[in-house]
């Protein structure tokens, strides 16, 4: 299989409410990535547009965004796997290049969630599960992750404080990230205050266990070996891609104390890259909720099943630890603009592997990993990157 590299990355600032349209927001990530790769539109052979379609009235946004960015007549298409859309887009870009169909492909993720009214937003939230068999019970994302937390608690003795540890770590780095929505420090005491992080959401999850919606965009440009070497001084190679699905309905799940899609996608990615969890120097994992990061740590093999709380407690997931996780602040601090999320994770890892991560730079990383989940473990993507 021919090699494929990331040659450009970009991201808008993630904000509560973007004062513009999706095309204008997409431009922000696009222009950063194009400057980063130092290429022209004519060098881009195809674009993959990633978002969740329910948050904007524009139908088929791929066309509108491609036109705005001057990316006609190259092919473009829209891809969606909920919160992992741009990681799915990256896998497709990889395959379009590795197959020889294209030399250079752009993956653009975007989401504006703030322009719906609160009512419209709540209505869409209600349709996030199987609308025939589960949405009818009044389910929501936090409640589904809460079911997983409850199961993890019951099976391994995990405590709410173990989850709070994850949020405290996240905030430590959110403070440093000027692209993040939430930039205040968080202390354990804040979880004792029901007006702050301690407010109940869906037992056992509290306000501090949940990330916020955001508006944002991300852009990743990949190329084949020849173009990567021509365009780019520090290509970051895609070494492993894994992806999996699970049943939407909870009735189809073997267990709720982990996400099967994370385990399966991870296995595929490690196998393809020819490495093991121990080789990973820095990771971005999908932390829409604290319990999601806890499960990711275990599902990816950074800890044994049930060993996550101890790893977190020992601060091994901090920048100085054995496996730094989400040291850009994660979704808990950055916010979670669905379609843009995976691309933002990729950008963080690429910058780490180029030694360009500024105040969060890990020392000489060789391998980085991105773990991105769509829905409540419905879709899972794991991508492994390496430097020359």
């Amino acid at each position, binding site marked *: 299989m021919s090699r494929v590299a990331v040659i450009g990355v970009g991201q808008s600032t993630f904000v509560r409410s973007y004062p513009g349209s999706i095309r204008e927001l997409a431009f922000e990530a696009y222009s950063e990535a194009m400057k980063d790769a130092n290429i022209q539109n004519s060098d881009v052979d195809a674009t993959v547009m990633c978002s969740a379609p329910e948050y904007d009235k524009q139908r088929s946004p791929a066309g509108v965004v491609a036109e705005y960015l001057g990316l006609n007549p190259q092919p473009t298409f829209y891809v969606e796997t909920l919160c992992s859309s741009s990681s799915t887009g990256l896998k497709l870009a990889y395959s379009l290049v590795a197959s020889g169909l294209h030399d250079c492909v752009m993956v653009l993720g975007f989401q504006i969630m703030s322009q719906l009214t609160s*009512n419209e937003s*709540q*209505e869409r*939230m*209600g*349709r996030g599960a199987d*609308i*025939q*068999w*589960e*949405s*009818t*019970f*009044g*389910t*929501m994302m*936090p*409640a589904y992750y*809460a*079911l*997983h*937390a*409850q*199961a993890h608690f*019951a*099976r391994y003795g995990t405590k709410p404080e173990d989850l709070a540890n994850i949020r405290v770590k996240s905030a430590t780095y959110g403070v440093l990230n000027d692209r993040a929505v939430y930039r205040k420090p968080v202390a354990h005491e804040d979880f004792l205050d029901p007006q702050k992080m301690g407010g*109940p*959401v*869906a*037992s*056992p*999850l509290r306000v501090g266990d949940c990330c916020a919606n955001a508006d944002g965009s991300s852009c990743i440009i990949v190329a084949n070996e020849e173009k990567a070497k021509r365009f780019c001084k520090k290509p970051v190679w895609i070494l492993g891609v894994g992806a999996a699905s699970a049943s939407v*309905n*909870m*009735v*189809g*799940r073997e267990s*709720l104390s982990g996400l099967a899609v994370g385990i399966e996608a991870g296995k595929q990615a490690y196998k393809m890259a020819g490495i093991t969890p121990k080789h990973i120097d820095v990771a971005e994992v999908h932390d829409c909720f604290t319990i999601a990061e806890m499960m990711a740590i275990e599902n990816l093999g950074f800890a044994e099943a049930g060993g996550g709380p101890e790893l977190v407690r020992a601060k091994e997931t901090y920048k100085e630890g054995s496996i730094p996780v989400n040291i850009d602040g994660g979704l808990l601090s950055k916010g979670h603009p669905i379609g843009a999320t995976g691309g933002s994770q990729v950008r963080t890892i690429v910058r780490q592997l180029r030694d360009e991560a500024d105040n969060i730079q890990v020392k000489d990383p060789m391998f980085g990993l991105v773990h991105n989940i769509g829905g409540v473990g419905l879709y899972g993507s794991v991508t492994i990157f390496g430097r020359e």
Partner: protein
Amino acid sequence: MAKDKDVRFSKFGTVSFTGVTQVNDFIDYLEQGKIMGTVCKDCGQKFFPPRAQCYKSLSSNMDWFEVTGKGKLVSFSTLRYGPTGFTDELPYTIALVDYGDYKVFGRIDPAVSNPDDSLKVGMEMAAKPAKTSNGQLTYVFQPA
């Protein structure tokens, strides 16, 4: 079991998002007090929620079976926020129950007090038909 187009299924749940399915008979059974799944006549696979077609046998040769007896509580959560249309019922507790051959997802009977304290993962539960607060069809779990 294909039917003429009907919207019986819109009677299911506090808020219904869909009315048209080939397993609309589920609703009639629920009205009769029975929670029903389907079982493939060709391969014996049980499905809950019910399906009209079996991917193992590539057929739509299905029978109904009744969900009876007890299952084990896999997990549960009590919601303090809810989507549009459900907020009047807050707080409510959702749960997943394992019957062995299949699992069932739904809500805990609102008559169960202090569910976060009284429920334990692993305890035995039973599902029974019920009405939602706005008179729609549903089923609920009770400790068994």
